[in-house]
């Protein structure tokens, strides 16, 4: 079973709970996150794990509220599920859109094939 974050739901609940309060004020309430980070999450970008957990606590919601589970699990040509591809370190702006993450997973798979093929030459 593969899992994804419902960024739309997360964003809408944050906006709704924030109301008229400024981003900076709310970021301080959540704790240890910046206003720009909060703004990016409200725009639907994926937070990192720590930030996600803090936002859930602030919203008084369990993390599972925002997790979409899919039964159909696609196998990559590596022979592992997409979720088994370990994206170790990612040098980027912290919050990426779900589309970008999907593209980067494809990048990893293609790069792996290329490395293995080059290694066999």
């Amino acid at each position, binding site marked *: 079973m*593969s*899992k*994804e*974050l419902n960024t739309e739901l997360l964003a809408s609940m944050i906006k709704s709970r924030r109301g008229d309060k400024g981003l900076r004020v709310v970021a301080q309430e959540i704790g240890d996150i910046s206003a720009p980070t909060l703004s990016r999450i409200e725009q639907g970008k*994926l*937070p*990192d*794990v*720590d*930030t*996600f*957990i803090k936002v859930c606590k602030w919203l008084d919601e369990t*993390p599972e509220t925002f997790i979409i589970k899919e039964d159909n699990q696609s196998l990559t040509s*590596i022979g*592992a599920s997409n*979720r088994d*591809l*370990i*994206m*170790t*370190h*990612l*040098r*980027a*702006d*912290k919050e*990426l*859109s779900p*589309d*970008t993450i999907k*593209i*980067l997973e*494809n*990048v*990893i798979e*293609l*790069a*792996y*094939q*290329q*490395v*293995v093929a*080059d*290694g066999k030459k």
Partner: protein
Amino acid sequence: MGKSKSIPSSKFKDKAEELSANYRTELGLQFYSRLDAFVLAQHLKIPVIAISCLKGFSKEDLGHLLKLAEWHALTAFVNNVKFIVHNDFNSKPRQQSDLFHELAHIICEHPHEQPKDYENFDFLRSYNKTYEKEAEYLGAALHIPKGGLIAKLKYNRSVDQISAEYLASKQQVYFRLHETGARTIVSRIKAKQLKES
């Protein structure tokens, strides 16, 4: 109230400077020489793939990544194979910095598994502040060696010149100047030489 711990530690910083010097020695370079990140990757036997050379990657997806300019480099570990993919559409100094940063994570052997508490959220990235700070410091030390920085300041090289000589951004040079205290070190050396002359 206790003193807050500095990240990374002084011990780590000393080790980072030592590694920067040692890799240069291993590659037959002078302590002040520019070390090319791609050469270091080859030396460490870490495959590096430029995104523009990725076979089978659609132009549409490439356009998406470049347009949003969100992504610079990644290190992946798949079936015991470690490799780096980087954005070669970035400037040359940026590419060097990104690659040094990724190599620093590998050299430090930063773990690639999701921390135990977050195993249920493996579809989200885990941003470990300590590891990022360590990679930032070591990456910069590999890029601009402390000894080289001091040597160039002694010869009155400007930030622009140092930046060009190391193929680094000025931001990276300023970071290293601040972290190493190179300017203070050189001032003291010059003052001592003046006194002795």
